[in-house]
C-alpha cells in the first residue's frame, strides 16, 4: 500500500483528502503544520507528498526545499492562488505538479496516480497494444497480429507509442512533433505528414484496416 503524506493546515480539507485517499486504497499520514511535516518526513518514508503552500510556522515552500534536499519524492502542491505566474514559479521550484483549490477529488486522485507511476520507475508497460497492433518497447518492434512491420524508424515508433499510450485522445501536431523529435514545433507539418503516411503505408502492407485517423488540420489519433 502506497504511503502518502498530506500537509494541509485546514483540518476539514486535510480530513477530506485523507478520507478520499484512504477510500482509494492509499494509506495516509496527516500533518497540519510545516514543523509536523518535517518530523513525519524524517521518521517515515512516503511515496508522495500533497503539500499546501500556506502553512503556519515553516512555510510550504520551505518544506518543499527540505524534501528536495533529501530526495526525489514526488510532491503535488495545493494552492489557493490561481495566479498564472504562480504556476511557473511552483514548477521551477521543485514541485512535480500543482492543483489549485477548489479541486475535484477525481482530479487529485488522477494526478496522484500519474505522479506515482512516474516515480515508481517501473518501466511503463513494456507492451502497448491497440486492436491487433502491438508495440514492444524493449525490442522496438511493431506488430500487427504476428506480422512485424519492417523498418520502423525511431520517430515512427515514438509517434505510435504516443498514440497508443492515450488511445482515445487527439494529439495536436505540436504534441506529436515535440514528443517524437524532442524539439519545439515550428510548423514542420510536411515532416510530420510524411512520417504518418509512411506508417500508414507500412500498416497497409499488412492489413486493410485503418489505424491512424487524421483530425483535419489539428492532428491525429487512433482510429476507433
Amino acid at each position, binding site marked *: 500500500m502506497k504511503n502518502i503524506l498530506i500537509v494541509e493546515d*485546514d483540518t*476539514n*480539507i486535510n480530513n*477530506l*483528502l485523507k*478520507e*478520499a485517499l484512504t*477510500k482509494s486504497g492509499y494509506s495516509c499520514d496527516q500533518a497540519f503544520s510545516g514543523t509536523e511535516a518535517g518530523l513525519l518526513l524524517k521518521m517515515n518514508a512516503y511515496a508522495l507528498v500533497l503539500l499546501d503552500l500556506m502553512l503556519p510556522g515553516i512555510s510550504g515552500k520551505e518544506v518543499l526545499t527540505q524534501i528536495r534536499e533529501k530526495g526525489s519524492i514526488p510532491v503535488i502542491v495545493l494552492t*489557493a*492562488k*490561481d495566479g*498564472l*505566474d504562480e*504556476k511557473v514559479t511552483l514548477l521551477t521550484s521543485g514541485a512535480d505538479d500543482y492543483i*489549485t*483549490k*477548489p*479541486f*475535484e*477529488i*477525481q482530479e487529485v486522485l488522477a494526478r496522484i496516480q500519474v505522479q506515482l507511476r512516474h516515480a515508481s520507475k517501473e518501466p511503463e508497460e513494456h507492451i502497448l497494444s491497440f486492436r491487433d497492433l502491438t508495440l514492444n518497447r524493449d525490442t522496438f518492434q511493431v506488430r500487427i497480429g504476428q506480422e512485424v512491420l519492417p523498418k520502423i524508424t525511431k520517430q515512427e515508433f515514438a509517434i505510435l507509442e504516443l498514440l497508443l499510450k492515450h488511445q*482515445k*485522445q*487527439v*494529439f*495536436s*501536431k*505540436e*504534441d506529436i512533433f515535440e514528443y517524437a523529435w524532442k524539439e519545439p*514545433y*515550428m*510548423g*514542420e*507539418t510536411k515532416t510530420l505528414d510524411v512520417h504518418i503516411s509512411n506508417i500508414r503505408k507500412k500498416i497497409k502492407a499488412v492489413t486493410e484496416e485503418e489505424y491512424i485517423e487524421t*483530425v*483535419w*488540420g*489539428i*492532428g491525429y489519433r487512433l482510429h476507433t
Partner: protein
Amino acid sequence: MKSTFKLIRRFILILMLSLIGLVVINIVLLVGLTYRDKSNAGGWKAAGEVAEQLTGSEADGFSLTDEGRSILKERQAWAILIEDGTGNVIWNSDDLPKEVPLHYSAAEISWYTRGYIADYPTTTAARGEDLLVLGYPKDRYWKLMYPTWDYHGIVNTPKKVLVFLVVNLLCIISIYLIATSGVLRQVKPIVGGIEALPEGEAVYIREKGLLSDLATAINRVSERLRIQERELQKKEMARTNWIAGVSHDIRTPLSMVMGYAGQLEEDLSLSEENRRKAGVIRQQSIRMKNLVNDLNLASKLEYHMQSIRREMFNLVAVVRRVVVDFINADLEGKYPIEWNTSKDLEACMIEGDKELIRRAVNNLILNARIHNPKGCRIFVELKEDEQKAHIYIEDDGVGVTEEKLEEIQNKPHYLMNQGSMNKQRHGLGLLIVKQIVEVHRGSVCFGQGREGGFRVQISLEKGRG
C-alpha cells in the same frame, strides 16, 4: 518644443510689422510737420522780383512799383541797390535800418551776397550791372555760410544711407534676439513642463527668474497629480487585493463542497435521486470555482496588476492545443470542433503572453459550450495578413440577438461600472477575452455567425522577427 517655435515665429512677425509701421509713421510725420516749410523759403526769388519791380535809373531817380513794395512789406524786408564799380548804395527802401552801411567794398559784397549785413540775413539779385540786396528780419532765415561739400561725399550718399539702414536693422534685430532669447529661456522650461504634465511624468522646474511663480504653480500641479495617482493606485491595489482575498477565502470551503459532493455522487449506497442531486451540487460548485478564478483575473487585468510575460510564440500551436484539449474533453461528442485554418498556415509568430492568449481562446470555446447546452458545432479559423493574425471562433448554436450583441460590445461590465447591478449582464468570460486582447493591443469583434451562432474575431499584431 513646437510651441516655443510658434512663439519665436510670432515674435519675429511682430518685429517685422512694427518696423514697417515705424517707417510709415515716420514718413507721415515728416511730411506732416514740414509741409508748410518751403525750401529756401523763396528768399532768392523775392530779390529777383524786387529787382525787376525797381524802375528808373540813377540819373532820373529810382522808384519801386506797388507790387515791389508789397513784396517787401509782406516779408518785412528792406532793400538796397549797390552801384557797380563804386560800391555805393544808390537806392534804398524806406525803412532801412540805421546800422546798414551805405558803402561796400568788393570783399564786403562777396560776403553780404551770401550772408548777413549787420546780422540781417540777405539775398541778392542783379539789376543790370548793379546789385540789389534784400535784407530780412533777423529771425527770418538761418543761413549757413560755408556750404561746400566734398564731391564724393554727395555721390556716395545713397550707399552711406544704405549702410546706415543695414547697420541699424542689424542692431535692432540683435537687440531683439538678445531680449527675446532671454524671455524664451525663461519660458522654455515652463512650456516643456506643461507639455510633460499630461504624459503623467513627474515635472520639476527650477523656481527662479522672471516666471518663477508659474514654475511654482506647475510644480505644485505635478506634485498633486502624482499624489492623486498614488492614491488611485493604492485604491486599485486595495480593490484587487480585496477581490483576490475574497476569492482565496472562498476556495477552501468550496473545496469541501466539491470534495464531499463528489464523494456523495459516487456513493452507491445513496439513491439514484440523491446522487443526482449531489452531482448538481458538484457541477454548480465548479461554476462557482470558474467564476472565482475569472473574477480574480478580470480584476487583476482591469487594474494592471496581472504581470504580462512577453515572448514570441506560435499562435497556431497555442490555439490548436486549446482545441485539442476541448476535443479530448468532449467525450459525448456534443461539441465537434472544425479546424478551418488553411493548411499553409502552420506557424504564425506573435509576441505576447502565451498563457493569457490560451485563456482567451479557451474562454471563447467554453462560451460557445455554455450558451449551447444542447450542443453545437464550433468552427475555429486562423488567418494572417501583412501585419496581423486573426482568430475566428464561431458556432452554429443559438446565437445572439442584436441588442445582446450591442450590450456585449459596448456596455461596461458591472465590474467596471459604477451603475447599478440590477440588470443581468453577460458573464466574466467575454470580459476577460476583451481585457486580454486589450493588453496585447489587439482588437476583438463580436458578431453573428454565418450559420446563426455567435462569432468572435480577435486580431493581434504579428511579432517582428
